């Protein structure tokens, strides 16, 4: 059988495509839910119209995005049974529980309260309407936590025992599965990266309007909110990434050795800036390195020994029997770098933006602007950027708005392919996890169907986002400014059209 078409390969490709695609929408959903809720909170507390306009604007983009996140998430729930039935049989006792928790607690929350929020503008008093958005936000974060706990168990299985008689893994400590350090660090890292993603999205779109001097009030507010989110999210992503990296050096040394293309263990171990190597022979042909830095990343000092790919491979062969326990090294090496590179570029652009647009009281009188004017980008005290550089800052912000999405995708590709050949590290190999009863033709069919459907929907979604981005915040209506005082709406006129309808 041609290996390229082996069911395992096909099933992995399908899982990769559908999951990376799904995860384009997830981080934006998580962060935009909270940011929209934050803007609506500002509206409820201050009654400044710019906050309501911004809420409606970002809320609309959030809705276009979450629709895709929700529907692509359905596939995730069933894909394990369809393509990975032996995986499901072997780990369902453990892995199923967080998924069920996610559905019963988080999905219901998100999906019910999002309906109330969309249709509730003229049906709910404004504080209750606002509470609905916070419920959605809590739902998205809970959902992320449960699924990351499940994934962390695949990265580092804990709280289970093998039942030989039934031929499966069984849960012994659910609390440990939910709170092991891998789960905490992954959740911290993924959630902060989600906020970096939403922040960069907000900064880029605000920059688009500010460059054109449109919707200045709302976009200035959004720009500040976005920049602060990028700065905080970016910093936390870096910190949590470092923590997660150290945990991975303990739990999956192979993944981290692959991420550095470190073939043989060294003390002190260098950090690789560029490497090109021969996977078959197990060495690098070209390597540019910073001495000692890898030891620091792994163990917090500049001298510790870090095991290499060949060492871990040998150790795993001794432990688990003959075989090749190396993941795809170039994918791990470059995936790790793309993740950090794209993510940290966004972080830097955000930090620069935060400095350039600092608050008025830090600026001399002549550089301060009114609420309805585009801010000067001020590099040094009394020295604003010229018109060309200003234009370029806005442009860079626009062009890099999707950088964290690229970083997120590579992050998942790195962490999932870096765990191979294991699906559950040290417990179950990926080749033993596929559905034995599903034919190549069936997997190929579903892969082609999902890939083409997702491609079509991507075009539709991006065009729709672009349309609403360009349109800018909507004008407010009488009804917007006079929200109902009673649940179900004030019955002033029984035949009044609904504030929102599909």
């Amino acid at each position: 059988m041609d290996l390229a078409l082996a069911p395992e390969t096909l099933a992995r490709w399908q899982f990769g495509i559908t999951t990376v695609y799904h995860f384009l929408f997830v981080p934006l959903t998580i962060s935009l839910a909270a940011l929209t809720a934050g803007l609506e909170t500002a509206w409820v507390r201050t009654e400044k119209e710019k906050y309501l306009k911004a809420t409606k604007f970002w809320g609309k983009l959030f809705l276009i995005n979450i629709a895709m996140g929700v529907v692509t998430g359905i596939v995730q729930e069933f894909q394990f049974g369809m393509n990975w039935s032996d995986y499901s049989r072997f780990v369902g006792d453990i892995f199923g529980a967080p998924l069920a928790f996610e559905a019963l607690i988080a999905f219901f929350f998100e999906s019910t309260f999002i309906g109330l929020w969309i249709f509730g503008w003229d049906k709910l008093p404004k504080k209750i309407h606002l509470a609905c958005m916070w419920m959605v936000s809590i739902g998205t974060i809970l959902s992320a936590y449960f699924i990351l706990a499940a994934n962390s168990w695949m990265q580092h299985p804990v709280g289970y025992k093998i039942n030989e008689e039934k031929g499966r893994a069984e849960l012994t400590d659910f609390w440990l599965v939910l709170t092991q350090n891998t789960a905490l660090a992954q959740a911290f890292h993924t959630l902060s990266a989600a906020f970096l993603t939403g922040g960069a999205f907000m900064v880029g779109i605000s920059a688009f309007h500010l460059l054109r001097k449109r919707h200045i009030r709302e976009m200035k507010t959004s720009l500040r909110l976005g920049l602060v989110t990028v700065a905080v999210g970016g910093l936390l992503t870096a910190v949590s990434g470092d923590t997660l990296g150290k945990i991975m050096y303990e739990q999956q040394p192979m993944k981290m050795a692959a991420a550095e293309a470190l073939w043989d263990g060294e003390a002190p171990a260098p950090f690789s800036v560029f490497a090109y190597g021969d996977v078959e022979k197990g060495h690098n042909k070209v390597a540019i390195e910073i001495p000692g830095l890898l030891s620091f990343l792994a163990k917090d000092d500049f001298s510790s020994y870090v095991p290499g790919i060949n060492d871990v491979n040998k150790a795993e062969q001794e432990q688990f029997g003959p075989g090749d326990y190396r993941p795809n090294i170039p994918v791990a090496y470059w995936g790790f770098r793309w993740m950090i590179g794209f993510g940290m570029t966004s972080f830097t652009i955000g930090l620069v933006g935060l400095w350039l647009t600092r608050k008025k009281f830090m600026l001399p009188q002549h550089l301060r602007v009114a609420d309805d004017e585009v801010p000067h980008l001020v590099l040094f005290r009394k020295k604003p950027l010229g018109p060309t550089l200003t234009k370029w800052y806005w442009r860079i912000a626009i062009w890099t708005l999707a950088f964290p999405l690229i970083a997120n995708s590579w992050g998942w590709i790195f962490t999932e392919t870096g765990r191979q050949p294991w699906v559950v590290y040290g417990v179950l190999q990926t080749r033993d996890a596929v559905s034995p009863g599903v034919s190549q033709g069936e997997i190929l069919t579903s892969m082609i169907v999902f890939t083409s459907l997702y491609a079509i929907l991507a075009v539709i979604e991006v065009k729709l986002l672009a349309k609403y981005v360009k349109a800018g915040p909507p004008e407010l209506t009488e009804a917007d400014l006079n929200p109902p005082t009673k649940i179900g709406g004030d019955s002033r006129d029984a035949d009044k059209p609904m504030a929102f309808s599909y």
Partner: protein
Amino acid sequence: MELHDVWFVLIAVLWTGYFFLEGFDFGVGILTKLLARDRPERRVLINTIGPVWDGNEVWLLAAGGATFAAFPEWYATLFSGFYLPLLIILVCLIVRGVAFEYRAKRPEENWQRNWETAIFWTSLIPAFLWGVAFGNIVGGVKIDQDFEYVGSLWDLLNPYALLGGLVTLTLFTFHGAVFTALKTVGDIRVRARKLALQVGLITAVLASIFLLWTQVDSGDGQSLVALIVAVASLVTALAANQAGREGWSFALSGLTIVAAVAMLFLSLFPDVMPSSLNEDWSLTVTNASSSPYTLKIMTWCAAIATPIVVLYQSWTYWVFRKRIGTQHIAADAAAGAVH
């Protein structure tokens, strides 16, 4: 009652919730072609379920996730075995969700019409296929000693399962029609009641045959009671519909779904997926279930979460309790969507 029996009941409850709720919103989707005469009427229909369809659909994800956690073998056999029908259902649910959310987001005639067509087909197809799937689960399929489905796609399209598909299709359409009568005002409400009568009569005939067939094949005393409740409530729902008691009619069509699902699960028990090849190869509540520890945790989760879900979802229906008609739909579709 052991925990795996409790979980058999809970899985049945989640599927019942799904068919009760998404049942009427599939039905409403089907009515967009069957009942609505023009775009404003189609929009009235879509907006009766607009705020709730997404929450309704989560009952499916809960049923799927809970099956994975409580009966991993059942989850694995069912979804790898019914691969292509499930693929079609997933594609429908993806397109359907996007259709609801995106239809009004552009004013172009073509755009809106295409999404409306999508809503109709992606409501109709799963409404039919879920019946086919349950017909096969209850009727039994070719499962080998390793719990793998070894039949073909064509084996799934047997007369009993296809009849099951027609039953869910017509029952959900009926359920959607009485829901529409309950949630709308004006001409469409009157026509929904008329259509409910026609569809309801067909449903009564098909459902009676299907449930009797099930009873004869694999029923017992309890399933007979459920059968009688299902048929009686369907007939009473029809009578209530004729009497213009829309609330009662909807409650009774809902009860029909509850009783019919109960009847199927009762005739299934203690199997969860009987094998038609050899009785010993059937998946049962004991050989397909998770460990007692997992079931205990899941029981706590479901016992606390499910009632809360029912509470806040009921509250949602109360918030959107007003009937809607064409006068409530802003004429400028695109402007309405920009807000």
